[in-house]
């Protein structure tokens, strides 16, 4: 009986992934996001090449890592938006209720959505790898081992971004509120970190006691945000690659897995708690 239920769950996850993946691949959004990330990347690389031509030198251990970092950030924004509206859209349209009359559960639905987005990113990764390999072959900017490491780690960064988006989506009942919540949370993260770094530029003596307390509070808040915001995992991972520490690299993969599991579990739990009508 348990085995039957398990195979039914696996089957419904597979059907959901296939249905959603085909639907995403047959829309303009996905290609638009890849195009934007590659055009920004090309612009950065053009500047690199221009720099070499003008000054006859470019000192950089990882010339292709920064353009890759920017591309991943852009594609992550696309993925966080589509994952943030994925559950709320089905809820708003009423398809979630219809699906849940069948063998689909909160778990299989959330996991299906998560893997669909992961597969979308893996397809993007093929384009990125081909593009960077081509650029490296034609310009001699090194396609280094660290770039391969970055490409590998980017799957785990994107996993954090997707699970965060799904978490937001499970909380909201409408597409519009999902977008508003997502933008508000990301802007709040940004504002706190910006305010904290602005306070750091002032010497301690120049600040009054209430401002010192505010600075301390902002310090703790930005520390917390660095673990909650999925985008901080991208910069943390990049740092681990730049200092060439294998231990930190593996630790970052571990952090990303733990983050994804926590946020996916929360999404399943909230979806179960709120029900199909929100």
């Amino acid at each position: 009986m348990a085995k039957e239920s398990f195979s039914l769950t696996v089957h419904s996850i597979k059907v959901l992934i296939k249905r959603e993946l085909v639907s995403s691949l047959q829309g303009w959004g996905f290609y638009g996001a890849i195009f934007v990330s590659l055009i920004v990347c090309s612009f950065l690389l053009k500047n690199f090449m221009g720099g070499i031509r003008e000054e006859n030198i470019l000192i950089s251990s990882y010339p292709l890592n920064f353009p890759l970092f920017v591309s991943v950030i852009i594609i992550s924004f696309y993925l966080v938006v589509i994952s943030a509206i994925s559950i709320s859209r089905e809820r708003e349209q009423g398809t979630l209720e219809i699906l849940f009359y069948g063998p689909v559960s909160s778990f299989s639905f959330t996991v299906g959505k998560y893997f669909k987005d992961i597969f979308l990113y893996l397809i993007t990764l093929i384009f990125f790898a081909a593009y960077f390999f081509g650029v490296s072959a034609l310009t001699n900017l090194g396609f280094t081992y660290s770039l391969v490491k970055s490409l590998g780690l980017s799957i785990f960064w994107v996993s954090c971004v997707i699970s965060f988006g799904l978490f937001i989506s499970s909380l909201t009942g409408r597409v519009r509120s999902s977008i508003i919540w997502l933008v508000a949370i990301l802007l709040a993260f940004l504002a706190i970190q910006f305010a904290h770094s602005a306070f750091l530029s002032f010497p301690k003596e120049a600040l009054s006691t209430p401002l010192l307390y505010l600075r301390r509070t902002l310090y703790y808040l930005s520390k917390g945000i660095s673990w909650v915001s999925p985008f901080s995992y991208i910069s943390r991972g990049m740092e681990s690659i730049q200092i060439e520490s294998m231990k930190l690299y593996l630790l970052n993969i571990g952090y990303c897995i733990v983050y994804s599991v926590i946020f996916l579990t929360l999404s399943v739990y909230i979806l179960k708690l709120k029900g199909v009508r929100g």
Partner: protein
Amino acid sequence: MRKTILFTGLAFILIFILTSLIGFAQQKPSFAPTLREELVYGFNVFDG
């Protein structure tokens, strides 16, 4: 219609990648340093 979007999208991205690569190939610096040469050259400059 939906399949047309899929194939057009894929073709568009591939054409974009190819044109960018052709552009980079034309921009290639004359000495075309490999990463290692580039680093050695950089150190030589600083060492005088």
